[in-house]
């Protein structure tokens, strides 16, 4: 099988090879377009996130996918599930807003405190040292949609770099070699 596909490559002329490279480029750029388009539509810098911890069990397990929006017109309210970033941690956290205080309209500042459903204490221990509240600038998005299990693929990819390389190599080979 492998030999036959390599023979295919050998038999290709320059034009065909270029065509394959271009179609590979099309796939990559359309994926990028979809991602960036989602960013514009949802207003969130990362519209799809994978749940990495069990702190929201039994609602969300490790490997579940969340769809986020972050429209400025919809203020954060208590009970919502927010995805936020904390200074000094690169992994965003998915937790629920438990307390919220909003100052008067003119200097519209909101501060809120989060907690994971499966945790017994609030998140002050997870925030940056000395940080007591989150504000809107910490928020990556609010969870709006849920899809189970799909994110396991990316978790495996991140945990086993070899697996990631193998998958990428296979896909790349397939696209370059495959002929309609």
């Amino acid at each position, binding site marked *: *099988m492998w030999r036959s596909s390599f023979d295919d490559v050998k038999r290709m002329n320059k034009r065909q090879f270029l065509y394959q490279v271009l179609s590979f480029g099309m796939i990559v750029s359309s994926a990028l377009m979809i991602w960036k388009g989602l960013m514009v539509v949802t207003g969130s810098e990362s519209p799809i996130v994978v749940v990495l911890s069990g702190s929201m069990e*039994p*609602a*969300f397990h490790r490997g579940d996918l969340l769809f986020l929006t972050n429209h400025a017109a919809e203020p954060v*309210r*208590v*009970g*919502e*599930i927010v995805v936020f970033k904390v200074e000094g941690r690169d992994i965003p956290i998915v937790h*629920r807003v*438990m*307390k*919220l*205080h*909003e*100052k*008067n*309209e003119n200097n519209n500042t909101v*501060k809120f405190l989060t907690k994971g*459903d499966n945790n017994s204490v*609030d998140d*002050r221990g997870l925030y940056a040292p000395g940080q*007591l509240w989150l504000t809107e600038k910490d928020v990556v998005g609010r*969870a*709006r*949609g*849920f*899809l*189970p299990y799909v994110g396991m693929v990316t978790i495996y990819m991140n945990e086993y770099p070899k697996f990631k390389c193998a998958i990428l190599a296979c896909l790349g080979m397939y696209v370059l070699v495959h002929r309609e």
Partner: protein
Amino acid sequence: MHSFLTRANAILAYTLSVCACLTFLCFLSTAFSHYDTDVRLRTFKTVVKNVPDYSASREKNDLGFLTFDIKTDILLIKYFNKIFIFNWNVKQLFVYLVAEYQTKMNSLNQIILWDKIIIREDNAILELKNMNTKYYFWDDGNGLRGNNNITLHLSWNVVPNAGLLPSISAKNVHSFAFPSEYTTSRL
């Protein structure tokens, strides 16, 4: 042409697309359902203290105490005019009791006082008597004493098997007031 790999690939692709299609249909079948119910709330023994909040700023903040009753007939889910407790696309309900009020310092304060996770197998009828709050009712400042318009409402967040994550508030709210003097004795 029909090697083992191409067959395995075809089966995998077909399985995945069928799964995706079924998941989407499952989401679609419940995307337009309305979730609503009647809730009766009552509060007793409202007390306010002024003590330092060591979990936050260490300044003296108002800390409210109350006990409450909740009675919901059932957490109803209306779906095409039929009523179910759980439809097939509900994995979990996160039920929470929110206190909402205004103070001089903040135009809006929302605090979750109590919550409960109800998973599929659980009884979705809530009838709670004389409950203490699960979380401390700390104000951000000193806005609880004599505050005569604190509203409580019950909300729930529906977590599906796959689909949207709606949050619904019960229409009926309960208002109460905190006493105009601090309590200094131990409770």
